């Protein structure tokens, strides 16, 4: 899958408004993945992941922090929610961002994970899955 097809697939899965939003979301999720994926595994994805996106995975560490949990993972994803316009599902409350940001972040993870899994073979997909924090692993499995 090339870069534009990847973004188009993420956009379709996530119901995102445009290509730019899709690019933001994809970058955010892959940067979070790079935080938990050991660097030694990254080059194994070069055939499946477009070079424009390998840039993010190559930010991986030699030894990922073992205490990097689901909250930190979602923190990376959430950094783009406001920039790209999170969906306001509130009924007048002031804290819509706080109340719904987790749902939004999980939705964004799902659409990128879905496209990523479609690009990878089973072994590669498992390799990513085992390094994800527990809660994120479940989201990945359901994507």
């Amino acid at each position: 899958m090339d870069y534009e097809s990847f973004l188009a697939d993420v956009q379709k899965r996530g119901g995102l408004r445009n290509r730019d939003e899709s690019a933001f979301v994809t970058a955010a999720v892959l940067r979070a993945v790079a935080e938990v994926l050991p660097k030694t595994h990254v080059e194994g994805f070069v055939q499946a992941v477009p070079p424009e996106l390998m840039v993010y995975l190559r930010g991986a560490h030699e030894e990922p922090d073992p205490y990097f949990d689901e909250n930190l993972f979602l923190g990376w994803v959430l950094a783009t929610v406001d920039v790209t316009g999170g969906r306001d599902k509130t009924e007048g409350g002031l804290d819509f961002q706080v109340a719904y940001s987790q749902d939004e972040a999980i939705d964004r993870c799902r659409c990128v994970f879905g496209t990523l899994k479609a690009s990878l073979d089973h072994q590669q997909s498992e390799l990513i899955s085992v390094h994800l924090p527990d809660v994120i692993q479940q989201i990945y499995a359901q994507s």
Partner: protein
Amino acid sequence: MVTRLDPKIFDSHAENTWCPGCGDFAILRSLKLALSDLDIPPHAALIVSGIGCGSKLPDYMHVNGYMTIHGRPLPVATGAKLANPDLHVIVVDGDGDAYGIGGNHFLHSARRNPNITHIVENNQIYGLTKGQYSPTSDKGFVTTTSPDGAIEASLMPVAVALAAGATFIGRAFAGDPKHMAAVIAAGITHRGYSLIDVLQPCVTFNRVNTYDWYRERVYKLEDDFDPTDRESARAKAYEWEERIPLGIIYRNDDAPTYEDQVLPLKAGSPLANVLKLQKDPAPGQYEALKEQFV
């Protein structure tokens, strides 16, 4: 058999109201890890906080906790330490609480050198009140209270602490909880005031200083860096923007603590003395104890 204290012992039943993805989660986790690594049980620790998102932390830990008014956790913590020097006293508050409203206490705690640990959750913004610029917001930072960008240059807490006489200064990043736990543990074991400035993204209100922003800039101090060298520490204290150092930036393990120099404490812990009196009172003992402090 040697067993390590399980960090889960510090879990509380309070519902957590931090935003998903908040850097405070990593700070909470790292603090639990540090206490368990140091084998400090819940009853031997006191966490004092101020007001702010991060100051809710005592609710989320099964330890002694005290939420004070805005900006005042340091004097309260100093008082607690004087009353019971055997307690591990840890202050946790945000950059607004510590460097803004409590800025005066920050300066004087640094020069006073009480044996307390001060963890500042520095997200460069006021989060609980919905996103106003804080003392550590970078110049030009646009918020609801700085619509044309922050006019002031940002406060450099590490440099200020060094100038004020702090005897331990560390910096950590919420994106590296393992490293943060080690820095916090080093701060707790240090005898004297230890400042640990934790760079922590506010995922809801600060869209500039994100995990990604910090990741591009932070680096861990080299193995050959000597934190006991004040001049080296001073150079690191001013590094910001392009490169931001993490780790133990300065330490002076030879300075006496404030408690070391409070004469009535030579007679032992006031709290322990009171408990002893309650257990085995003798005529005149209460009056003698009072006279030491009044």
